[in-house]
């Protein structure tokens, strides 16, 4: 095979593997943001975090939220809930960053998926 073509295909294979591993990490990050509270499934977002922080700043102690299935539920202890979801966001994003750093260090398809 022409060496120029061989090198390009090698890089192409690396990029495909790289993109797939990035996709997996992003998907896992999204899954790690899912939180269950009293049978309600919610996805922790920066918007939700800011909303809860705003209510706390206004001395609110409880709130009604809408879960991922559009069902309303009551959060009786807003302070505790906000701490919980902040913990979830922090864990998920740190894990994402940690794994992402490992990916960008590797410059070969083999290195990206080695156990």
């Amino acid at each position, binding site marked *: 095979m022409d060496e120029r073509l061989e090198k390009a295909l090698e890089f192409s294979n690396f990029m*495909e593997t790289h993109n797939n*591993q990035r996709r997996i990490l992003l998907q896992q990050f999204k899954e790690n943001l899912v939180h269950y509270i009293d049978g309600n499934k919610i996805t922790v977002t920066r918007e939700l975090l800011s909303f809860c922080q705003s209510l706390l700043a206004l001395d609110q102690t409880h709130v009604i939220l809408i879960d991922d299935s559009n*069902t309303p539920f009551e959060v009786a202890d807003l302070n505790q809930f906000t701490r919980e979801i902040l913990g979830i966001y922090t864990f998920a994003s740190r894990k994402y960053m940690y794994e992402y750093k490992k990916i960008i260090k590797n410059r070969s398809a083999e290195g990206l*998926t080695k*156990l």
Partner: protein
Amino acid sequence: MSKGVVLFAFNNDYIDYIKQAVYCAKRVKKYLGLPVQVITDDKNYLEKQFPFYKKYIDTVTYSPSPLSSIKIFNNGLNESQRDVEWKNSARDSAYDLSIFDKTIVLDTDLIVSNDKLLKCFDTDEDFMIAKEYDLIHYEKRFKDLDRISNKSIHMYWATIIYFKKSNLAKIVFDLVQHIKENYNFYRLSYEIIEKKFRNDFAFSIAIHMMRGFTQNTNWPITLPTDMWVSLDKDILVDIKKDSIQLLAHRKNDYISVKLNDANTHVMNKFSLDQFIDKEFANE
């Protein structure tokens, strides 16, 4: 309330589901720390071939082998393809046979690699089943993994089921049993082309019926876990702790994939079998 995991294992001439069950139980112990009940028709084989099984399996329950059907299993892209006798129709008996109040039923080819399934026990739900999944390679999307047929309803995966002993869960399992007994009628009603009985289809139909014959209701809620799917044309290369390396098939070749902390459904039973042999060499 007692909690545990139930695994069904009925061997055929080519695939050793009992071996898979022992390996699955080993990972359940490690990541979920739950007792495991295996339901099988061949306890003698389990005891003879895997004398160490009691380290991982707490209870073995006899159940006669269910009726079999023929299914094609691939072993990667270029390896052999086999028509195999498939005995997978006993899942509807999980409700009656489970010794636990709260049960997670798993396929034996699910590689448990995190503790997310424990969140099931924190919910008030009576019944949950897997619906969302991720394929290990993004290029692929298979309509038949999303719906039970092109023009029909959403597919739910009997690969992971959670239930609490309750009236509602009993109704689901009884309905699945009824669908199984009248499968041809339901198969035609739901425009399923495939003739063989599949648990996934029966549960999907049961859920659709119990939702009031609609697709968009809040019941059953999504299982609080991930499920990554590797198809039978993919190859399992290795597993080290919570990391899995696979080769995902493309058109004519493979791409290497690594998953960390991911519950992974490995459909290539032959490569899973080879890996477990290696793993059990030191037991």
